[in-house]
């Protein structure tokens, strides 16, 4: 313990970690996020039933209220069952998997793609830079949901297609952030000093400027994961997202829609609650990261 607290006090990284956890809400967000990720990764080991395996599902058990026993008597459905007789808790954990896969996958790909485009834009400058930034402005100005609906209508449903759509819609955020940061960093003294050493420009860009662009990109990426998950859920709800065979949280909510009017609230309620908790956790962590990583806000 002594060594850990010494690290937290002395090293730069340690101080950042300590700063991060100094906020009660951020710590809460971090713990929730950790639980969500563990549940999603180890889904088969933490759920009583595989909701995709039809042999494990009993249609007689459909639409049971939370806390009901299964008809075979060996299982308690703590969160109830859905229209097909799936244990809702298991379905939520497996749904989290799809939602996180889509959110993290699209954020990673668009982060890499967007950063490359942004850095390239800053590196070349001139007319190419102006053109790229005009395209970025256009992408950011247009309502995301309408573009997503159109692209998905064009390429069809599916997890890969949803990720692809989100990448198309989100790279512009990273491109703008990376370009802006790269332009700021390239004015700094440390870059001046390497310039004097006759190192090729692309090596300065990748070796010196890029690492210093990482903090803001990380913040954008964290918040974008939340946005991507929400957008995926919305698209699936509207029937244009993931297919029925791979239900994400959004699709689970959508499936519960038809039972809502007959007062069977849990089929929509619990998946939504899981979605809400995940996104709140991501936003709390993202907000705190922004404060910790921004040197201007530090006292």
């Amino acid at each position, binding site marked *: 313990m002594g060594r850990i607290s010494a690290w937290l006090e002395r090293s730069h990284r340690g101080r950042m970690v300590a700063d991060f956890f100094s906020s009660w809400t951020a710590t809460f967000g971090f713990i929730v996020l950790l639980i969500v990720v563990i549940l999603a990764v180890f889904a088969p080991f933490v759920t009583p039933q595989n909701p995709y395996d039809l042999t494990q599902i009993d249609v007689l058990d459909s639409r049971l209220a939370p806390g009901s026993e299964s008809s075979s008597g060996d299982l308690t459905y703590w969160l109830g069952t859905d229209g097909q007789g799936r244990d809702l808790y298991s379905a939520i954990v497996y749904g989290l998997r799809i939602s996180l896969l889509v959110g993290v996958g699209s954020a990673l790909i668009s982060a890499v793609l967007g950063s490359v485009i942004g850095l390239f834009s800053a590196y070349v400058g001139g007319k190419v830079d102006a053109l790229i930034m005009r395209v970025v402005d256009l992408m950011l100005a247009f*309502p995301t949901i309408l573009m997503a*609906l159109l692209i998905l209508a064009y390429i069809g449903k599916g997890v890969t297609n949803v990720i692809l759509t989100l990448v198309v819609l989100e790279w512009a955020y990273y491109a703008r952030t990376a370009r802006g940061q790269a332009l700021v960093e390239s004015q700094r003294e440390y870059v001046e000093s390497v310039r004097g050493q006759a190192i090729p420009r692309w090596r300065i860009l990748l070796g010196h400027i890029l690492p210093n662009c990482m903090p803001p990109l990380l913040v954008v990426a964290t918040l974008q994961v939340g946005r991507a998950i929400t957008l995926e859920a919305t698209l699936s709800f509207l029937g244009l997202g993931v297919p029925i065979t791979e239900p994400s949280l959004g699709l689970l909510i959508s499936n519960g829609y038809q039972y809502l009017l007959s007062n069977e609230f849990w089929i929509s309620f619990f998946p939504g609650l899981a979605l809400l908790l995940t996104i709140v956790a991501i936003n709390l962590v993202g907000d705190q990261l922004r404060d910790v990583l921004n040197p201007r806000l530090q006292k």
Partner: protein
Amino acid sequence: MAAWLFHRIGQACLVMFAMSLIVFFGLHAIGNPVDILISEDMNQEERAEAIAKLGLDQPLTHQYVAFVKGAATGNLGKSFVYGIDAVELIFQRLPATVELAVVALLIAIVVGVPLGLFAGLKPDNWFSKLSMAGSILGFSLPVFWLGLMFIMVFSVQLGWLPASGRGETRELFGIAWSWLTANGWRHLILPAITLALFKISLVMRLTRAGVREIVHQDHVRFAKAKGLSSVRVVVRHVLRNTMIPLVTVLGLELGSTIAYAVVTETIFSWPGAGKLILDSINSLDRPVVVAYLLVVVFIFVTLNLIVDVLYKLLDPRVRLQGAK
């Protein structure tokens, strides 16, 4: 100013042209509307006649040229499904969407500005902290789920408010509005709050950030030192200066609220333009989709322009920069 305005309008036309091109050819690639629109028991001749009537027998490039020619005169083609003018169809539905968006935005201002003002003036008060934490919740809530939960609580459980439709409408300037009747208001309130929640958080945070920045500025301290009452200082000196960024963001938000109404309208079966576009995408009704997107881009660009002009008029500092 005139040159700047001219430049901006040219840019807007370019965006709309690019948009129409992408959507026109994109939708063609998705599928052939003929398959959906023409019933199977038609014979070969009837089919050919129906296709020719829709202009779908021409090569795609010809169809596009015909579309652009029509668009120049304000005619964006007839809906394949409804058989009436696409623009007319959209403008029949648009008032319902605009009504919803405007009411949502008003709710956001009425609730968000006071909360943000309080949080900005007294940042350490427990209520401020609570409302700021609440704003994160507002940002995170999936809109469609919130709508469903509202229906469950207020329509199914309590039976207070209706879950779908516009209710009674009354005509004003030849357009049917829900906000003119009590029954219409009862239908309006749930979808409007659903759509407003995200904006309440946004307005709250913007107001708070603006207030926090302004209270420490010299002119506010001077006003206090002069012995003005604190209400007067807040209203005349703090709130007025906070309004500038708020007007900018809200102007732009109105456009995106209209676009995002797709989700809310679907949940509450609100017969607006959002629901129309979703149905039209599904039935490959190309003229309606293209026309709707052009209308939305037009609204966006116009709002953008109005906001920029307003900004220049409201803030003398920006005006000076523009004159350089």
